[in-house]
């Protein structure tokens, strides 16, 4: 087991919406990765915390505090929150669990109605149900951590379908498009970027039912940035089935989705 800290660097709010803890790297048999990842994995039951010694992590944190002279209080606070969560979770995990083998019914100071006896049969039934269910395997999606938190479930990724066209062919078509582009304006004067979905609307309007090459579809002046946007939107349309691509006489051609 080792844990080491790296000097703090300026970092923004993370994808989980909080200031990330310092870059303390945790290395042990049960887990290898950053303190932030450890937190997420433990929270989502991906790591058995019993296999992760926490004392060295706390030491690494103390070291981090000394190294940075406590400059970044937000990240230090974040580390304390994470460490206390881990310690609490581990403490819970270490509590003795009453096992089914202890046949003695729980001691009641005074009999209550309804009593726990009433549930004994139900517990057996739940056990059986769980066992039966244990024999069924559902498709194991591995949803992004954040989706788990939001309860959104898995994210099925649509397979992208480009038929006999290779990624190499696409690269060539893209190269030719970019070669026709005019230089971009300096960044400071550039118009605010459009969203990809807006671009997808533009591109899908430009596509027709007949297959055409990019030279025929994209006309007029456009900058390199616009070419890139255009092409990314086209790829996304292909992926969601609203555009088609084929290789015809050595040329890549595109068309809108076939009429239903």
């Amino acid at each position: 087991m080792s844990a080491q800290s790296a000097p703090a660097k300026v970092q923004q709010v993370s994808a989980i919406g909080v200031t990330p803890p310092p870059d303390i790297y945790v290395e042990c048999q049960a887990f290898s990765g950053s303190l932030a990842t450890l937190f997420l994995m433990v929270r989502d039951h991906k790591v058995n915390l019993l296999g992760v010694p926490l004392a060295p992590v706390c030491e690494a944190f103390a070291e981090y505090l000394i190294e940075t002279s406590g400059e970044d209080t937000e990240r230090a606070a974040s580390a304390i929150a994470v460490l206390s969560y881990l310690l609490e979770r581990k403490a819970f995990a270490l509590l003795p669990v009453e096992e089914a083998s202890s046949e003695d019914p729980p001691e009641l100071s005074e009999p209550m109605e309804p009593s726990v006896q009433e549930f004994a049969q139900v517990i057996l039934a739940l056990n059986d149900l769980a066992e039966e269910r244990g024999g069924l395997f559902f498709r194991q999606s591995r949803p992004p951590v954040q989706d788990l938190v939001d309860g959104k479930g898995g994210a099925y990724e649509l397979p992208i379908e480009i038929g006999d066209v290779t990624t190499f062919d696409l690269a060539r078509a893209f190269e030719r498009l970019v070669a026709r582009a005019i230089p971009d304006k300096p960044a400071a004067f550039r118009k605010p970027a459009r969203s990809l979905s807006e671009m997808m609307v533009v591109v899908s309007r430009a596509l027709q039912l007949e297959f055409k090459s990019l030279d025929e579809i994209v006309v007029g002046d456009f900058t390199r940035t616009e070419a890139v946007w255009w092409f990314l939107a086209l790829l996304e349309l292909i992926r969601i089935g609203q555009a088609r691509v084929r290789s015809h006489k050595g040329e890549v051609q595109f068309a809108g989705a076939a009429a239903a």
Partner: protein
Amino acid sequence: MRLDRVIEALLFAADTPVSADALARAIGCPIYEVEEKLENYGARLRDTSALQLVRIAGGYQLCTKPEYSEVLSRFLAPQNTRLSRAVLEVLAVVAYRQPVTLAEIEQVRGVDSTYGVHALLDRRLVREVGRKKTPGKPHLYGTTQQFLHVFKLDDLTQLPPLELSLSQDVGDGIPSEQGAFLLE
């Protein structure tokens, strides 16, 4: 495009239980048609596939047939870590008495149940569903979709009825009415 194939694609991609209603809305066809196709699809799988269509947690979902559980558990990590008897007891109380407070659970069980409730919250079998309008505004707990999923229930009405107590039933060995729910 054949409706049954579209349903198959949707069920495969969804990887959570999907209601017939949600399917009908996605496809844009009447719900009775979807239900009919689901029935046919389920029947087709029975004879031709290692997969089956189950009604679970309020929807339909694809899963493997039980006869493959052995080879699958060898191949994949074993999937259910057992719940201790104490935790199951808390779960049973929550399932039947929901919404229920910690104090009420403890009243039924006669023992401190903090650990059990936390263990169930951690596993997403139980969640906070509100607060009781009594002094101290304690949390109320209820079961989750995950609970239905883990115990292969379609909804809470499928829980066995609370009729017999263990003391009456133990030792006589005669299958009682309650046992039947195990067979579905």
